[in-house]
């Protein structure tokens, strides 16, 4: 199948395909980060995670319209404001959901799963009623359009680079927050021994709520970033949820590095296979491989061996 291409063209194809994989990788990382906090650190299954992302996307969409209509001068930077607003909106919804729903279910993880699924249905219907069933897209600022020619045959889209940069910086921020700050230490203390953490003066209730809120906030930012590379519909979140959970579980739920490594391997595998097979078969094979590996190594790629 490669006979028709010159070696230079082949190199270009692989480079482009690799870059497409890198964008997919960034998307996965962004999606998975919030979940890595909520599921990996707190052990809560949030099936509505995708809908929290979509909320961020819709916030971005609204702000894009707002700036276009009223503040066209500032349109170039609206996206940064939108990201902050997305974080706040999804985070606030997260705080509320934790208070109303999640905190009653910490001891019943399977029930959390069902309840948050119900939540996701409700949110989807609300989005559909408010924004309509059709997908919406945001207007991308001029500086983000176009692509950067690396060589005369390899070009990389700027919005892709932007999403990648975003993925890296949010990863670093989450890492610092969870593993280098005293707040992160509190979160991990609460997860490992709730009673003891309470006894040493940590407000476990507030820690839980804030952790959940921040996880949802990160999801909102991810959704905001998505608008740069694709459009948003009410059920878009559901499309991602299985992939996202697989990424986190595959990486070893409690390990941030694992999440990133697994996002990398899954995205690369998928985009490379997409070159050889049809899109759906590539997806099937990728998911099958992940499920197969999880059956052999259920603790994921990166997991500690612990004394029971």
């Amino acid at each position, binding site marked *: 199948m490669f006979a028709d291409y010159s070696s230079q063209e082949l190199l270009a194809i692989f480079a482009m395909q690799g870059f497409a994989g890198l964008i997919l990788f960034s998307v996965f990382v962004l999606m998975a980060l919030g979940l890595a906090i909520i599921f990996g650190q707190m052990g809560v299954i949030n099936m509505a995670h995708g809908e929290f992302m979509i909320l961020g996307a819709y916030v971005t969409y609204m702000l894009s319209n707002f700036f276009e209509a009223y503040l066209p001068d500032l349109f170039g930077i609206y996206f940064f404001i939108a990201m902050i607003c997305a974080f706040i909106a999804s985070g606030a919804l997260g705080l509320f959901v934790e208070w109303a729903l999640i905190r009653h279910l910490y001891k019943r*993880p399977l029930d959390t799963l069902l309840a948050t699924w119900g939540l996701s249905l409700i949110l989807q219907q609300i989005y559909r009623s408010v924004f309509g069933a059709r997908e919406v897209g945001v207007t991308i600022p001029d500086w983000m359009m176009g692509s950067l020619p690396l060589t005369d045959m390899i070009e990389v889209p700027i919005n892709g680079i932007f999403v990648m940069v975003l993925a890296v910086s949010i990863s670093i921020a989450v890492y610092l927050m969870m593993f280098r700050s005293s707040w992160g230490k509190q979160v991990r203390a609460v997860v490992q021994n709730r009673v003891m953490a309470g006894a040493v003066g940590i407000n476990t209730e507030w820690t839980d709520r804030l952790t959940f809120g921040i996880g949802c906030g990160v999801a909102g930012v991810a959704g905001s970033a998505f608008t740069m590379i694709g459009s948003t519909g009410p059920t878009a979140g559901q499309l991602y949820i299985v992939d996202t959970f697989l990424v986190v579980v595959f990486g070893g739920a409690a390990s941030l590095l694992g999440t990133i490594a697994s996002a990398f391997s899954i995205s690369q595998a998928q985009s490379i296979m997409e070159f050889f097979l*049809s899109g759906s078969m590539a997806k*099937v094979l990728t998911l099958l491989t992940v*499920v197969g590996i999880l*059956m052999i190594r259920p603790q994921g790629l990166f997991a500690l061996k612990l004394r029971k």
Partner: protein
Amino acid sequence: MKPQSNRFMSMQEMVGFAILALLIFVIFPLILDPFRLNLFGKYLTYAFVALGLVLCWGAGGILSLGQGVFFGLGGYCMAMFLKLEASTPENTKIQSTPGIPDFMDWNQLTELPFWWQPFHSFTFTVIAVVLVPVIFAFIIGVAMFRRRVGGVYFAIITQAIAAIMTILIIGQQGYTGGVNGITDLRTLMGWDIRTDEAKNILYFVNGGLLFACLFAAQYIRRSKLGRILIAMRDQEDRVRFSGYDVADFKTFVFCAGAAFAAIGGAMFTLQVGFMSPSFVGIVPSIEMVIFCAVGGRLSILGAVYGALVVNWAKTTFSESFPELWLLGLGALFIAVVLAFPKGLAGLYDDFIAPRVKPLFDKLRSKSNSKDADFVGAPAE
């Protein structure tokens, strides 16, 4: 003091079974027109799935979010047989390759794939309806339970399997009929299944099979295996150190759940007349869990009522207020988890059972006066 009785059914359960039988075999056929009866027959096919979930999830603590896969495998096996019967060379003579299913022809297939061939045989199909999903469940079960994957991880992985299955079916449309599924099914061994009379008969066959499955589930729950499942849910380690291979038991109950779901799927195909990936994926699979949860995850009779109530509500609401239905379904998920974790069966236990119990006690002390050993034995 003698240990409690270990009968197949308590008197209360017998009455419960009898009431359900009356409802399904007498009342529904009397009050519903043929169209509605067929619809209720469709709801009842979901009761098979919910029943399997009572065993897996309620009794065994294993939540599978992939029951749609087994429902679908059973349904597709049956659909393949019916499709082959419908695709005689005369019926398909306008195709470029007559004698193969229409969707294969549309997708430029010129020959029936080898794995479709055995579905010319009805005997093979009936066996495959149960065996294919059970073997699939067995492979998943052995792989996961041997490695002690359980709880939420099992739920997520079964959900991923449901996703994979849907993508696969949709992607391979030349072999599976793709997103439309296998449609235009007409006859079962020459018997037209589209007439009202046939649908009526199928409804009763469906009810009979459901009762067979209910009895099987009751037997499993009543046996020592049922108690081991409960023990496993509470103290898995202890069961292991009482000398049981926990993985075997989980695999068994998962396979049993798959078999029930598959029978439901096959009956679905027969009664509704088609099978498509929209009954296989993530969304239908998790909805099947809610049938079980609404009925009461511990109650096998509750599973039937749960499937009936939720599906009836779905039809009613989505006919008149489609927007409300999704909100209602979402709220149902939340409510059943937060407020009614034991579902309808729990409501019955809390409000109705205390009122009817004195009645049963009276009945029992009359009829059991000879059999004094069992007097005072717990009703459960």
